[in-house]
């Protein structure tokens, strides 16, 4: 299948998205709401390109448009640059302290501050909700509609079925989701509001709370696995390292019949 990408002819596999083909060929298309591991949502519209198929030109989003036959794609026309600039400016007013948007703004010559700031601490890319559905406990979702759309939990209540994986915080392009471990509890904070609160499991060795209670069946179901993965979740990473070291040492002492010296203290 032949694609004319910004004037150059390239070959592409049928069914690949425009974004995939462009990236394979070193053509950069900006994205904000896309990560290759998740199904595209085409929400930010930054990756909009011009597609000419059967002599008909139209605007499509590169992240989710599957190429099915010969076509021409333009990724960098003056019109597209202007549109991207406007989208960046509009999003910037929602989230003015974002580094990603500032970088994008510099690239596309966006005039920051063209629209009054309406700090919503979110660019509404939907990544957290999508990753939560795929990886986490399906706690976060896009709620409300129109201007009132927001990331929230069911009925805005603090969720208890969160698995505390932290994928939402990690994926957020504007770093607006915080994971906090305090005492024996982990909380996920979005827009300054507690989205979930779950207990942390105490280490069977030292007794300190260290990680979320993970329902392995959920992970296995999603991964399509039937065998329980071989890792021990009952001991905290510090104890795990120490125990391992002790076992090594004990083996060593046994081998050379060395009598370990009593220290009285565990550490």
């Amino acid at each position, binding site marked *: 299948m032949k694609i004319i990408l910004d004037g150059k002819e390239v070959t592409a596999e049928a069914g690949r998205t425009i974004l995939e083909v462009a990236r394979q060929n070193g053509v950069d298309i900006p994205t904000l709401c896309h990560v290759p591991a998740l199904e595209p949502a085409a929400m930010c519209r930054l990756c909009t390109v011009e597609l000419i198929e059967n002599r008909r030109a139209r605007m499509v989003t590169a992240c989710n448009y599957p190429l099915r036959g010969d076509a021409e794609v333009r990724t960098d026309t003056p019109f597209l640059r202007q549109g991207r600039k406007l989208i960046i400016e509009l999003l910037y007013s929602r989230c003015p302290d974002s580094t990603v948007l500032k970088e994008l703004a510099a690239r596309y010559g966006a005039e920051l501050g063209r629209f009054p700031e309406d700090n919503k601490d979110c660019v509404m890319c939907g990544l957290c909700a999508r990753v939560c559905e795929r990886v986490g406990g399906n706690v976060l979702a896009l709620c409300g509609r*129109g201007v009132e*759309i927001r990331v929230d939990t069911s009925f805005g209540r603090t969720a208890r079925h969160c698995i505390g994986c932290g994928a939402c915080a990690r994926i957020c392009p504007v770093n607006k989701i915080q994971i906090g471990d305090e005492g024996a509890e982990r909380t996920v904070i979005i827009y300054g509001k507690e989205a979930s609160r779950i207990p942390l499991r105490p280490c069977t060795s030292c007794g300190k709370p260290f990680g979320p209670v993970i329902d392995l069946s959920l992970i296995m179901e999603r991964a399509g696995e039937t065998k329980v993965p071989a890792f021990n979740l009952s001991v905290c990473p510090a104890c795990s390292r120490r125990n391992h070291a002790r076992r090594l040492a004990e083996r060593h002492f046994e081998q050379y019949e060395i009598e370990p010296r009593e220290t009285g203290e565990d550490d």
Partner: protein
Amino acid sequence: MNTATSAAAVLSGVKRFVGGQELEQHRQALIDRTDPNAPRILVCCGTGCKAVGSLDLLETMQNSVAASGAAIKVMPEVKRTGCHGFCSRGPLLTLQPEGLFYQRVKPEDAEEIVKQTVIGGELVKRLLYKPQGAKESIAKVGDIPFFAKQTKLVLKRVGRIDPFDINDSLVHGAYKALNKVLNEMSPDQVIEEIKNSKLRGRGGAGFPTGLKWESCSRQPGRHYVICNGDEGDPGAFMDASVMEGDPHAVLEGMAIAAYAMGSDRGFLYVRMEYPLAVQTLTRAIRQAEELGLIGDNILGTGFKFKVSVSTGAGAFVCGESSALMSSLEGKVGRPRPKYIRSTEKGFRDSPSNLNNVETYANVPEIILRGGAWYTGYGTERSAGTKVFSLTGNVHNVGLVEVPMGTSLREIVYGIGGGIPNKKELKAVQTGGPSGGCIPIPKKFLDINVGFGKLAEIGSMMGSGGMIVMDENICMVEVSRYFINFLVEESCGQCTPCREGLTRMKDILTRLTLGEGREGDVELLEEIGKFTNSFSLCGLGTSAANPVLSTIKYFREEYDAHIRDKKCPAGVCKPLYYYEIDPEKCTGCGLCRAKCPAKAVAGEKKKPHTIDQELCIKCMECYKNCKFDSIKIM
């Protein structure tokens, strides 16, 4: 007393039709029992008339007829019908077979109508329709221009039958086409006939229906037939009237579509705000199922088609096909970010055919009379008729069906009866919030309404909303209204629609408050242009049309708001004031009497004045002045 009971007698012998012949025999039996010349009183119980009390009228009418039973020679049947169309004159009442038309009938008029007209054969003059400026009232439906100038194909039975009684529909030819299709035609022949008719989707986009059916039928897998009854455009009520007035036409159209595409399952997605439509459709499905016209083994042919009604949850965006299907699946009604036609992968990822209510309602008649007959109506590219809901500043507000290609002049002046209060026609807004404002009388009064023509001038046909605007409508306020509507109804997924519309709303609100700035119009145009090309779904890609079309045709009004801080139409309150022209004022005192704020002062027979501090700009003085002496400044 009425055919519902006499038909019940006929029905009692019929359980389910196991063949087409049985259906026709039953129909003939019903027709034989119905005397076309028997007196009938049709009470309009469409949503409009219901709102002004037609259900009470229906009841008192039934009681009055029953009470004077002895005096009446032939007992008239008092029938509840769907929308008659002339909604601004409701509650409406038609007396058959003479075709007498009474308007604005109150329950207390029932007795008089029975005594004077039914028994005495005399007209109740005060209830007759009198056109604006005419001296004589018109007694017969057929002589009223509003009705006489229409061509009713889709609305043929609406307002004439009782939508709750399937037998009444059968008398008027319902399910004849389905019978023909099942016994005489192959699915391909059905599709061919629809293609020949050049029927295009009535939901707004105007995609050729035959082609859609064909591409859907070629897909493998289970097929679904879905009807879009989520009519949400402000001021539009065409689909509601069809669903409420003739539910079997929609069901029959869907069943024919299902047969053509090899489907066995259909859904009617109706907005929750149409309780009457949901009620009539649910009842119609049950009655049709009882008779074997819908459901398993239809008319004994083995063809199976189950239909159910699904209600929306109040979201405008669910009229968009992919959002509708998400909503139907029980998910949030947001458009899907997928570049795949729903005829390939739609509802439950299966090939799904989605058509508008009016599109399906057109199908039975096309099957019966042939595609070529249908192309006899309308224009080369837009065949058939279109139902419009004519609203706004026009005398005859109501439901209007005309052949495609009818001029706006004919619709607004011929059928609509022109503009009230001697005002000038300023614009016609078509296509709902995604449509545009067509300036009139500048140049477009003689434009022929059809799919292509309206798009050419920056508007669209949409589903058929038509709002007439006079000189006292401010175009900036109109676009603010529509953008505000869309801001609330946007699903919020994609940036241009969510953020772009919000910014446009902010700017437009600023303009209407007199806080507009130089460059605002250019900014609106910029945002509008990109919202229209970067958005995800049909809502976003047409959302800026009201703004872009009003800027294109009424730029001077925007400029007046920004530069002169004036609202020429006298709508945006901070931007105008009323003043009395001392030359014209006769000092009659009417405005002084009407003013709720006591802002008008003046001695009798001397020019009055308005105290601007007290004036609340309610327009009472302006509307009431008989000498045209109050000016908007």
